[in-house]
């Protein structure tokens, strides 16, 4: 089986009660998502992303065309047992507690009691809701509900994970966790289909993307190939003297090229995560979700001992220096942050931490300049606010490039 998901001129038409006013939500869609691929379905609001997912999951019937999910029909229990789905909003039973919610979905998957209990505790820990596990989910904030939505999508250790707008409603740490998780799961041979209009998220994690508009694919391909600017180069260095900068400029001029020199700014995301982590270490009580950066770390390290998810996947475990010491499990950014946790945080807002950024992450060639992105079709199609630092989304990522084919 080569493709995890394949559609054949899939078409979905919405009509009014009398069959008039036809709206082509999805039109002649031919989607091929390979196994072990992170595929992003992009598009502005109403472009047919969610409709496509709903058809693939059997919640809508296609007007025309066919689809194959994991080699079969997604409503077949044998197939759907291997799918994890996180809808755009968490539609939860308000009266159940977080633990009961996960237990309910675990039962639907027919998981044995022991397995269920173990996974529920592991997942609650992972999404940082252990403290709120016995509270009715009706009292949860949107972000907390999303975390439960994520946990329930993972409870069956799915081979195919379908995520609809996975990061909306989540705080930056949650967003980062999801992104790290996606990369981690992809590394273990899972297939992930996500649809979003938050381009930064997609760009960080996806191997391939398709851009939908009016229910049709407008553009499709590998993220790197689509975004690379072959006529530009970027150099990032450690702390060097002005004289050295001048020398470099000269060399560049000899090559008949333009040269811009600036100091990279710390990402707000990085700063935010550092701030919250510091507050957490001072044990500031919160009624909400406990913000951890554990998702990625959790699955890769602690799992070797406790987590059932890990035992079930056949992919080799990423190397960990020590699984007993929690601090080493954290991504590098957090680690460096922890050493400086006691420093004045406001001070950092203005300070440029050049050396750290540089050593961790060489600038990515797919960095987009603001003027250039304007020409991009994404810009015309989306109303999402543009993040100038999109390319630096990797700065905090310990695994480097998202490519994990």
């Amino acid at each position, binding site marked *: 089986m080569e493709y995890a998901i394949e559609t054949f001129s899939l078409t979905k038409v*919405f*009509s*009014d*009660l009398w069959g008039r*006013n036809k*709206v082509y939500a999805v039109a002649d869609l031919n989607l091929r998502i390979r196994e072990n691929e992170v595929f992003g379905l992009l598009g502005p609001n109403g472009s047919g992303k969610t409709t496509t997912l*709903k058809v693939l*999951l*059997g*919640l*809508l*019937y296609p007007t025309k065309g066919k689809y194959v999910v994991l080699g079969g029909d*997604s*409503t077949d*229990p*044998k197939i*759907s*047992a291997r*799918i994890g*789905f996180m*809808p755009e*909003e*968490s*539609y*939860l*039973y308000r*009266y*159940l507690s977080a633990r*009961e919610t996960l237990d*309910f*979905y675990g*039962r*639907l*998957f*027919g998981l044995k009691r022991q397995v269920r209990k173990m996974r529920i505790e592991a997942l609650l820990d992972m999404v940082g809701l252990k403290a709120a596990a016995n509270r*009715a989910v009706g009292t949860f904030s949107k972000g907390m509900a999303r975390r439960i*939505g994520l946990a*329930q999508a993972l409870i069956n250790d799915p081979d195919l994970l379908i995520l609809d707008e996975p990061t909306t409603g989540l705080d930056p740490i949650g967003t980062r966790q999801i992104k790290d998780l996606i990369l981690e799961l992809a590394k273990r041979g899972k297939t992930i289909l996500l649809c979003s209009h938050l381009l930064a998220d997609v760009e960080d994690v996806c191997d391939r993307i398709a851009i939908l508009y009016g229910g049709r694919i407008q553009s499709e391909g590998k993220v790197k190939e689509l975004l690379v600017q072959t006529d530009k180069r970027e150099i990032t260095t450690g702390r060097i003297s002005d004289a050295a900068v001048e020398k470099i400029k000269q060399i560049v001029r000899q090559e008949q090229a333009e040269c811009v020199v600036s100091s990279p700014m710390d990402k707000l995301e990085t700063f935010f995560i550092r701030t919250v982590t510091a507050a957490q270490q001072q044990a500031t009580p919160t009624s909400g979700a406990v913000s951890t950066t554990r998702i990625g770390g959790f699955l890769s390290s602690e799992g070797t001992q406790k987590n059932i998810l890990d035992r079930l996947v056949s992919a080799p475990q990423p190397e960990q220096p020590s699984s007993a010491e929690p601090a080493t499990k954290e991504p590098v950014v957090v680690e460096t942050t922890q050493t400086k946790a006691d420093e004045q945080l406001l001070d950092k807002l203005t300070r440029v931490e050049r050396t750290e950024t540089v050593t961790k992450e060489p600038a990515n060639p797919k960095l987009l300049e603001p003027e250039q992105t304007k020409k991009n079709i994404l810009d015309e199609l989306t109303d999402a606010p543009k993040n100038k630092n999109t390319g630096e989304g990797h700065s905090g990522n310990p695994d480097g490039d998202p490519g994990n084919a």
Partner: protein
Amino acid sequence: MRSIWAVAINTVKQAFRLKIAAVFVILLIVLLPIMGFSMTGDGTAQGRLQAFVSYGLSLTSLLLCLFTIIVSVYSLTNDIKQKQIYMVLTKPIRRFELIFGKLLGVVILDIALLTVFSVLIYTIVIYTPRLSGASAEETAQLKNEFYTARASLTPGEVDVAGEVEKLYQKLDESGQLEQMYKGIRRANIIAELTRRVKLRRRAAAPGQELIWEFRDVKPLSKDESLFIRFKYEVSVNPPDLHVYSAWAAGDYRQVHSGKIETPIETFERKDLIRTFHEIEVSANVVAEDGFLSISFLNVPQLNNTVVIFPPDDGLEVLYKADTFGSNFIKAVFLILFRLVFLACLGLMASSFLSMPVAILLCLLIFFTGTISGFIIESFEYLSKDISLLYSYTVGPMVKLLPQFDKFNPTKFLVSGRLLSWSLFARVGAVMVCIKSVLLLLLALLFFSYREIAKAVIR
């Protein structure tokens, strides 16, 4: 199976945590004991208990019916409206499993609540006379007429066609027919004669004796009593409004054979007309093969009027055929059958309708079910002229309506009548095995073809 159970448990939790169940539970927990103390009926201990059992059980039944409709409709339509179903149906669960799960959940709830309330009612019924200090006489009356499950035998329809035919011939030959019924069609004359002959079978002139025969009389024990329950009509009111009579009960075949094995009991009585009376007879007068005959003599010198036993309830033989407890349990099960039917109805309606419309439909069918006798009668009356059309179109549809009034369980308990196993099985078969299954199949059909995330463009 595991997923059906998961859905069922979730449905139960939903009903309790959203306080739907709480409303009904509190209402009944408060109302039933209050009713137990405040209901006085006609002032006697028996009247009091009759009123309580009747209103208590009817109220429980009504509230649980409404509860069942609301929970079964809410549970499914709300899942669809709030989209929780997106996250459920994408799991390895078939749609029919979801419907079965919901049904199981509602039925579990019904069984639990019904058990609680019927135990409550039963306890109150059993302890009320002790607490209220009923007299020995009242206690005895209660034992015979209330804490019992009495089977009732009525003299069935007698076939009088042959006799009527003879009478017609005789009148025809003597020429009286021409004289009495001039210009009237034969069928009408026969009907009139039939009525007269039948009346004669139920009427006794002074000095005349009437004999009824009963077969298959099976009292619970030979130590129990039989009761002859009767009411007199008279052609002319006696001055003191009383009738003097001589009754006998036993196996009269012995009189002809001359071999007496079972006793024959006789009674001389003076009873008020147009009122029900009961004669207590020892149950051992019944022959081994279940034969029993009863005779009534209109005592010639003391009465001067023809005594008539009205049709339907003129004469009955009552005997204890089961205990009150087992009758009560059967009555409670009749209510449960009703609830199962309504749960299936609720799921069927919500498989294709939104919540308000589905509840409306269910309530409509529920209330027509409670007056189904009236509805069926009026339809049959109105459709006399188009009977063929009716019997193939509206007729079957009307028959499909639930008939809650016909199988009202409280009337059996109030009169201490036996709720026979045959009636019990018939109601169960019709209400649960046929109608509920039919509704469930419809629900599965509608739901499995329904597009869950359907959007209609306006």
